[in-house]
């Protein structure tokens, strides 16, 4: 999947309406530095800037999470080392690097 395809959608999905005074930090999303705030989940951090976290292995369609409480498993992203993160329940840390277009096996 072309990493830039995710960003073509334009604005992010989530909009901050509170708690914007937290400490800024930077993580890498597909190799690009992205601003986040301490206490953001990986999902929140990514979806400030783009409209998808991953693509479904069966349909190829973009996904951006669904339940936000660790049940649907539709917000997985990967680290460059291949570790799988559930983006809705993983908090960002400075220097964290995640891939939204990693090759994944369907199973």
């Amino acid at each position: 999947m072309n990493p830039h395809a995710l960003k073509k959608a334009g604005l992010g999905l989530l909009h901050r309406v509170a708690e914007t005074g937290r400490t800024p930090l930077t993580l890498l999303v597909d190799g690009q530095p992205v601003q986040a705030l301490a206490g953001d989940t990986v999902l929140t951090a990514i979806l400030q800037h783009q409209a998808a976290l991953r693509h479904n292995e069966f349909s190829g369609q973009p996904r951006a999470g669904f339940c936000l409480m660790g049940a649907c498993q539709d917000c997985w992203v990967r680290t460059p080392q291949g570790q799988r993160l559930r983006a809705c329940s993983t908090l960002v840390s400075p220097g964290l690097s995640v891939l939204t277009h990693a090759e994944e096996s369907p199973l």
Partner: protein
Amino acid sequence: MSTSNSNSTAATYTTASAPPVIVGAGPAGIRAAQTLVAHGLRPILIDEAARGGGQIYRQPPPGFSRPPEALYGFEAGRARAVHEAWLALLPQVDYRPEHLVWNAGPGWLDVLQGERSQRLAWSQVIVATGATDRVLPLPGWTLPGVYTLGGAQVALKYQGCSIGQRVLLTGTGPLLYLVAYQIAKAGRAHGVQVAGVLDTAGWAGKIAALPALLNQPATLAKGQYFLAWLLAHGVPVHWGVQPLQVLGRERVEGLHWRDRQGREHSTEADGLALGYALRSETQLADLLDCRFEFNALNRSHLPVRDAAGRSSVAGVYLAGDGAGIQGADAAEWAGERAALALLEDRQGLAPGPRSRALDAKLAGIARFRQGLETAFPFPTDWAAQAPDELVVCRCENITAGELRQQVKDSGAPELNRLKALSRVGMGRCQGRMCGLAAAEILAHASGQPIDQVGRLRAQAPIKPLPLMAYASPGAEGTAPEND
């Protein structure tokens, strides 16, 4: 610490010495733990979350500053009380946050922390696993920007975010109005608006439900307040609608829907929240071999329990929404009651006055719960309306048409057979998002009542595990089929 690597260790504990185990630190689990501590025990409290409170009273991560009043509204007092109880418990319980119980059997639980799994022995366990949104798919529901109602609330409470700038909410249930109110209120200073509340339930049921809802007048008044606030702030509210199609190619751009007069509309939105009340997380009770029965009120199979929370399995107690949806207040009572039942069984005592008082309170909830179901009925015609191309399983992209074809080809299978044939419910979510819809499609396509099609049996791991967990000391499982 009573961890062990083998089943046999469970037998070495006597009931009197082994610490009780509580799974889940929401309102039920916290009150259960508090009750056991008050009676001199030091329970093991296991929770998937980093901080106690469950979903309803979920606490933001450290560093967030909004007071409970801003996060929980009318429930701030309750939330604060539950959080304070949790904080006070920390030195008095064996608290294991960010631990997932992924498998269970007689006398043991497999518990994962990070990438390490350990086997924990139990002789008495309180299962307080909570609930997630009850979801019915509609075409386009997999688009980015569609979230469950509970998910939209988590974004707001836990992250200070709205799921869009122009948000639509559809489905039914009290959460529909609460979440609409919360988003509209928090968002209006930030250019976020609620574009509409589209309730699939009609208005007549809400009138008919009033006598039963008056059993909990404060809760009824809160619901009326949210509705009045939304209407006073110009939020369009429609009853008796049918959502038809989420619009958009790469993300949500709107919703196509039909009003109660049969007219079709398209409303623009960049965020959509969807839900039809809640469904219980019953996998653990299932793995513990609790007996299930169809429950008409919840329109699902639920683990059987007595009024105090005893399951069909000795030593297994059930409390809170994980055993049947009754709401957060009832969950606190049920957690305490289950803990008292555990203590009564441990000491061979009859129920005391506090137990009897809780039994009476919990009995009173039943009528209110019936009222909610009248006010926000499940759309029983959903399966008949679902188009063949509708994606039912969002994990593996299985459509309603594929399920109907399997039903036709195989001759009305029961739900687990349909799962084996089609893989519906076999994906990563283990049927949490699609299982209910698959059962409805099966019942409709085979002409059977919903209580006759069976239930998806839980399988370990109840959530996907990191591969390393299988190789770590203490883990005995073989690699599961779904990861």
